[in-house]
């Protein structure tokens, strides 16, 4: 074990302690808390009424499309945060890079519009 | 008020003759009685006639008169309101106790749907032609019609309430 590797042991202990504390509290409170299971209790709750039919049915695909596109463009916005912070130091060259990045995504967005992915009715 | 009670009375008598009777002015509302089988035509006439124009059905409710004669024990009371001349009218139909049945006016006013279901739920008055005549306020499994006089008010299953301390004897409640 070289000396520089030895320096990592306190960090590992710290990480172990943190993860261990979180895991332990969840596990112990699970033990402490009383549990009660019965057929009636494990049914899904629909405002106190017998639920009819099954909720796991095939939904129409437009909900999934909207959700995925939202995630996609939301991640794009996250990439803009670091750029927005040091916007002045990066100057024109930064602007061009970010412009290129966004242009690619706009092409994708244009494709979605053309394919009527967000068409609702 | 352009529309006087006398005008209403005269027009309705001309139109329906013997089917309408017993016109009386009770506290600024003209009240008259209609034979149960003619209720649909009378209300259609009141609604569509140009001078009468009773365009709004305010309320439908049932009344139980146990001391009346056998064929007049249940009454269905309709309140109608003419918004243009601001006049109200009250129509009463008396039904026999054996099988209280009357035509439903849902075809004229959509609002009558639940009002008639409530009257059925309380008194057991059958509304012929009602799209969905079943109980609305009480439990569906209830077989008795609670607003009839013979049905007791208090919950029978109550054990903790000793009637002697509440001054209740059999006959006064």
């Amino acid at each position: 074990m070289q000396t520089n590797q030895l320096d990592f042991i306190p960090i590992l202990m710290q990480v172990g302690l943190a993860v261990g504390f979180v895991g332990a509290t969840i596990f112990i409170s699970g033990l402490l808390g009383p549990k009660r299971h019965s057929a009636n209790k494990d049914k899904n709750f629909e405002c106190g009424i017998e639920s009819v039919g099954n909720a796991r049915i095939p939904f129409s695909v437009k909900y999934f499309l909207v959700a995925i596109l939202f995630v996609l463009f939301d991640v794009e916005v996250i990439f803009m945060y670091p750029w927005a912070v040091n916007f002045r130091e990066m100057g024109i060259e930064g602007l061009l890079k970010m412009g290129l990045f966004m242009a690619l995504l706009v092409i994708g967005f244009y494709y979605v519009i053309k394919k009527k992915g967000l068409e609702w009715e | 008020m352009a529309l006087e009670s006398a005008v209403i009375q005269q027009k309705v008598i001309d139109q329906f003759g013997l089917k309408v009777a017993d016109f009386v002015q009770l506290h600024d509302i003209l009240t008259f009685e209609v034979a149960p089988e003619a209720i649909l035509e009378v209300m259609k006439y009141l609604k569509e006639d140009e001078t009468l124009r009773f365009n709004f059905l305010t309320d439908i409710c049932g009344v139980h008169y146990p001391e009346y004669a056998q064929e007049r024990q249940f009454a269905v009371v309709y309140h109608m309101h003419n918004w243009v001349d601001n006049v109200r009218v009250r129509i009463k139909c008396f039904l026999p106790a054996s099988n209280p049945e009357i035509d439903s006016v849902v075809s004229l006013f959509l609002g009558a749907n639940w009002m008639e279901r409530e009257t059925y739920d309380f008194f057991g008055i059958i509304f012929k032609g009602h799209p969905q005549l079943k109980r609305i306020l009480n439990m569906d499994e209830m077989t008795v019609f609670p607003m009839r006089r013979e049905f007791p008010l208090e919950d029978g299953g109550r054990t903790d309430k000793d009637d002697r301390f509440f001054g209740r004897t059999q006959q006064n409640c």
Partner: protein
Amino acid sequence: MSELLLPPEQRYASVINQRRNEDGSELSILNLGPTHPATHGIFQNILLMDGERILDGESTVGYIHRAFEKIAENRPFYQITVLTDRLNYCSAPINNMGWWMTIEKALGIEVPKRVQYMRVIVMELARIADHIICNSVLGVDTGALTGFLYVFQFREKIYEIYEEICGARLTTNMGRIGGFERDWSPAVWAKIDAFLEEFPAVWQEFENLLVRNRIFMDRTINVGSISAEKAMSYGFTGPNLRAAGIDYDIRVAQPYSSYEDFEFDIPVGKSGDTYDRFCVRNAEIWESLKIIKQALAKMPEGNFHADVPEYYLPPKEDVYTTMESLIYHFKIVMGEIPVPLTEVYHPVEGGNGELGFYLITDGSRTPYRLHFRRPCFIYYQAFNDMVKGQNLSDAIATLSSLNVIAGELDA
């Protein structure tokens, strides 16, 4: 016809089995049930859903049916006001005053002008309180919780005014046959003036928060709309009817308790959707404030109750000293007030519409039959027509804007 008698779940289950959408998605049944946070009260809607869109629905009510009308047949007249303020408990004093006016009409008692003005002030305060709840909770349902927290503060101020008048906050049981149980203390007038000073600014702030709010407008415009003819046919009255475009208001159509002395106009909407209902209730609060100011300005002098000894409890000094007061006191407390044989229907403009009391008396100590014309019960049947074809979130905004109060719904 008989197929409609089946419970809605079975009816919809058969529809679900046959129908497959072209893209393979199926229909489902959703139960917007009694304990749902969006139904501000206890009523149930079973909805046939295609994804988020509502295809069909049926409402079930009666979950707190307490048999008011059956109780009313077994209670003397003074004990029925306890029932009336549990009808629409958001604006309890309006129901109380409506009941007292019905009895005064049946007994033919003329109430002094001062009492009529005091009743107008109390009813308008109750209308403000009712609309505060409806609009702020409509804001909560479309995501704007802050408005609720600020504006509810002023409903507490109205509660304090009621406490000064009759000691209770919500179920007020206010007033007697012929007037009020005691004159209003100076604290009441001071609190009303304080309320009239502070409330307009806060209400303007609440309005600015929502009326021009992009999200709120998108969530409520063209949502749950109903045409004027359909609203009239369904028996709509009150703010929901005025939002559809008909300016029917009983305070103007059949003025009671000297409403004709006040100038106020009736806000009317155009398209009968949730946004119009919100704006009509907003404007009605401004009108109510105007009425209260005029009533305070023109408040006449006089006694706070009519001179009807056999119906109005005599003051305690008289009861101990004079014989007649003792007899009147005893008869009133035992509920033996002389009531003639009459049949009377008296409508009042409640928070949600025309609240009517249809009273049949047979001269005994209890009413022979008392029927409440409950506006919520009558216009709630149109809910399924209004939300058919809309999204679920629109149905929740519509339901909240209709202001259906469970107590009034199944009396």
